C-alpha cells in the first residue's frame, strides 16, 4: 500500500543519501519491502543476523557489491550465518574453484560492511543475545523462530537482502512479529503423551516441529504438553523443523517459552483456527516421512548439528562415540565460537573419527560424497531439505540411533523408544 508508510526525518535523510549511496540503497530496498508488508512505520533494531552471506549465485554478490561500493557499513552489532565454505577446515568443501572463489568474495563483502565473522546459523548460542521484548532483525528461519519463541525477542521473518538493509540502516518494518497482536497463537497443538524414552533427545521435538510446520500454515502455533524440562537444544530442533516443513516464525510452548505461561496468554483473544492432537503414532509418521530408506538399510554416513551443535550437544556426541568404532563417516556441524569454547571435546570427537564442520553445514554445500549415502541425521531440517538440495537419501533418527547406525553401517531404530510395536 504505497503512501501509507511514515518515515522519520532521519529515515528520509538516509533515503536521500546523507549517509552515503550504499546506505541510501539499503533504505530504498527497506522502504519498498516495508510497503509490500503494509508497515505503517519503521522501528529501531538492536542487532541483526545476516543470511545473505551464503552463496546461491551471482545475484547475491551483485547485491552485496552494490552496498560495499556505496560505502555501506552496519550500524548495529551484526552476526553472519553459515557460508558455503569452511574456512577453518579447508579441503572439506568440494566446490569447484570458480564457485568457491565467488562464495569467498561474498563472505568478504559482508566482512567489509563490518559484520562479525561468526558463520553460524545458531547466533543464539553466542554470549550476547537479545533480551525479552527487544526488537532485532534476524534472518535464517531457525534463528528467527528461536529468537521469537525461546528468547522472546522480536524479529520479522527476514531473509536475504533485507537482513543487511536492516543492519545498515538500524531499522526494520513495524509489522508482523514485531507487533503484540501478531504474536498471539492462532493454532493449537496438543501433545497427548510425550514419549518418556525420548525426553533427553532432540528427535521427538523435531518430529513434533515437523507436524506443527505442516499444519500451521502462516499461523503462530501454541503447543501444549511439551515437557517443562525442554532444553534450548530441543526447542531449537522443534523450531528448525517447523520452519522447514512450514513457514513457522514463532511458536509458543505452553509452560516453557516466555510469552506462554498459559494457553490463554499465548492465544490472547483469538479462538484458534486449528486444534490438533499429536500422539506417538503421528510422531512416528513424521519420523518416517523424514526418512527415504527403511530400517536395516545400509547407511553411508551420519550428519549431526543442523542447526549447529551447541557445546552441550558436542559433549553428548563425544560421550556417545567414546570407545566405539565408527564404520562410516560421521560429521558434526557447529559454530567456530562454540567449538573454540570446548577444545577438549573437539579433540575427543576428532580422536573418535568424527569430522567437525564449521562455518557452513553439510546440507547446503558439497561435503558428503554421494558414495556416503544414505545419510542418517538427527535433524528434521536436514532430513527435509537434503533430498531436494543434494539428491541424497536420508534417514531421520535420534542421536543414539545415529551413532548406533554409524557403528553398524546400517540404519538402526530403537523400536521401544518410539513405541513401534
Amino acid at each position: 500500500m504505497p503512501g501509507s508508510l511514515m518515515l522519520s526525518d532521519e529515515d528520509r535523510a538516509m533515503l536521500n543519501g546523507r549517509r552515503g549511496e550504499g546506505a541510501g540503497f539499503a533504505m530504498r530496498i527497506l522502504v519498498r519491502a516495508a510497503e509490500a508488508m503494509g508497515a505503517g512505520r519503521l522501528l529501531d533494531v538492536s542487532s541483526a543476523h545476516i543470511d545473505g552471506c551464503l552463496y546461491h549465485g551471482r545475484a547475491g554478490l551483485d547485491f552485496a557489491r552494490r552496498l560495499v561500493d556505496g560505502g555501506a557499513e552496519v550500524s548495529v552489532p551484526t552476526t553472519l550465518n553459515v557460508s558455503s565454505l569452511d574456512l577453518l577446515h579447508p579441503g572439506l568443501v568440494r566446490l569447484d574453484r570458480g564457485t568457491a572463489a565467488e562464495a569467498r568474495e561474498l563472505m568478504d563483502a559482508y566482512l567489509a560492511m563490518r559484520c562479525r565473522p561468526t558463520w553460524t546459523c545458531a547466533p543464539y548460542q553466542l554470549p550476547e543475545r537479545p533480551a525479552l521484548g527487544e526488537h532485532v532483525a534476524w534472518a535464517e528461519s531457525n534463528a528467527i523462530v528461536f529468537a521469537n519463541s525461546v528468547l522472546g525477542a522480536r524479529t520479522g521473518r527476514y531473509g536475504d537482502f533485507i537482513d543487511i538493509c536492516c543492519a545498515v540502516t538500524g531499522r526494520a518494518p513495524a509489522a508482523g512479529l514485531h507487533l503484540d497482536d501478531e504474536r498471539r497463537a492462532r493454532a493449537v497443538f496438543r501433545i497427548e503423551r510425550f514419549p518418556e524414552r525420548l525426553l533427553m533427545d532432540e528427535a521427538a521435538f523435531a518430529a513434533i516441529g515437523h507436524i506443527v510446520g505442516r499444519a500451521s500454515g502462516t499461523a503462530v502455533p501454541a503447543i501444549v504438553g511439551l515437557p517443562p524440562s525442554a532444553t534450548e537444544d530441543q526447542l531449537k530442533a522443534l523450531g528448525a523443523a517447523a520452519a522447514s516443513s512450514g513457514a513457522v516464525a514463532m511458536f509458543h510452548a505452553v509452560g516453557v517459552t516466555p510469552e506462554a505461561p498459559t494457553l490463554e496468554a499465548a492465544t490472547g483473544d483469538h479462538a484458534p483456527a486449528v486444534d490438533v492432537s499429536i500422539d506417538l503414532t503421528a510422531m512416528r509418521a513424521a519420523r518416517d516421512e523424514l526418512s527415504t530408506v527403511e530400517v536395516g538399510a545400509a547407511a553411508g554416513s551420519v550428519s549431526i548439528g543442523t542447526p549447529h551443535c551447541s557445546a552441550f550437544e558436542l559433549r553428548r556426541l563425544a560421550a556417545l562415540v567414546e570407545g566405539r568404532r565408527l564404520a562410516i563417516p560421521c560429521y558434526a556441524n557447529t559454530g567456530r565460537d562454540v567449538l573454540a569454547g570446548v577444545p577438549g571435546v573437539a579433540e575427543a570427537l576428532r580422536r573418535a573419527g568424527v569430522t567437525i564442520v564449521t562455518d557452513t553445514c553439510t546440507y547446503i554445500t558439497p561435503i558428503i560424497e554421494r558414495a556416503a549415502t544414505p545419510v542418517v541425521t538427527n535433524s528434521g531440517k536436514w532430513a527435509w531439505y537434503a533430498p531436494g538440495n543434494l539428491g541424497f537419501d536420508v534417514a531421520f533418527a535420534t542421536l543414539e540411533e545415529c551413532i548406533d547406525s554409524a557403528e553398524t553401517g546400517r540404519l538402526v531404530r530403537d523400536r521401544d523408544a518410539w513405541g513401534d510395536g
Partner: protein
Amino acid sequence: MAEATRVLVPGTASGPVVVLDEPLSFWGGFDPATGRLVDTHHPQVGAALGGCVLVMPAGRGSSSSSYVLAEAVRVGTAPVAVVLGESDPIVALGAIVAEELYGVGLPVVVATAPALVTGPRVTVRADADGTVELADG
C-alpha cells in the same frame, strides 16, 4: 476477473499460468539453473516454472528464497509474475531486488481467489496505486 487484494511489487508481465496446489520455498524447492520445481515433498515436483505466471497459496520455509528468486531472474529462469493467496514478503523482496539490480520487473500480487487454471496465458498488470488486472492472453 479476480478479486485482487494487494500489489506487493508493481509491474506488467504475461505468460502461461502454473497453479501450485501447495506453497513453495524457492530455496530448496526451485532450481534456478533449470527453472524447475525440485522439492521432493511437493506434489508438483518437476514442474517447469520459467516464464510462467506462478499462482500459489503462499510462500514457505527458508529465508534464502529472495536470493534464489533474484538469481533466477538474473539467469532468466524465473516466473514472470507471482500471484499469491497470502502475502509473502520474502517472495516480494526477491522481485524488488531483481528489479533494482537487473531492471527486470516481476509483478507480485496477492489475490485471494484468482480464477486461474494451469495452461492458458494471462497478463498480470499491477500498478503502484494498487490496482491489479489479470487478463486473458
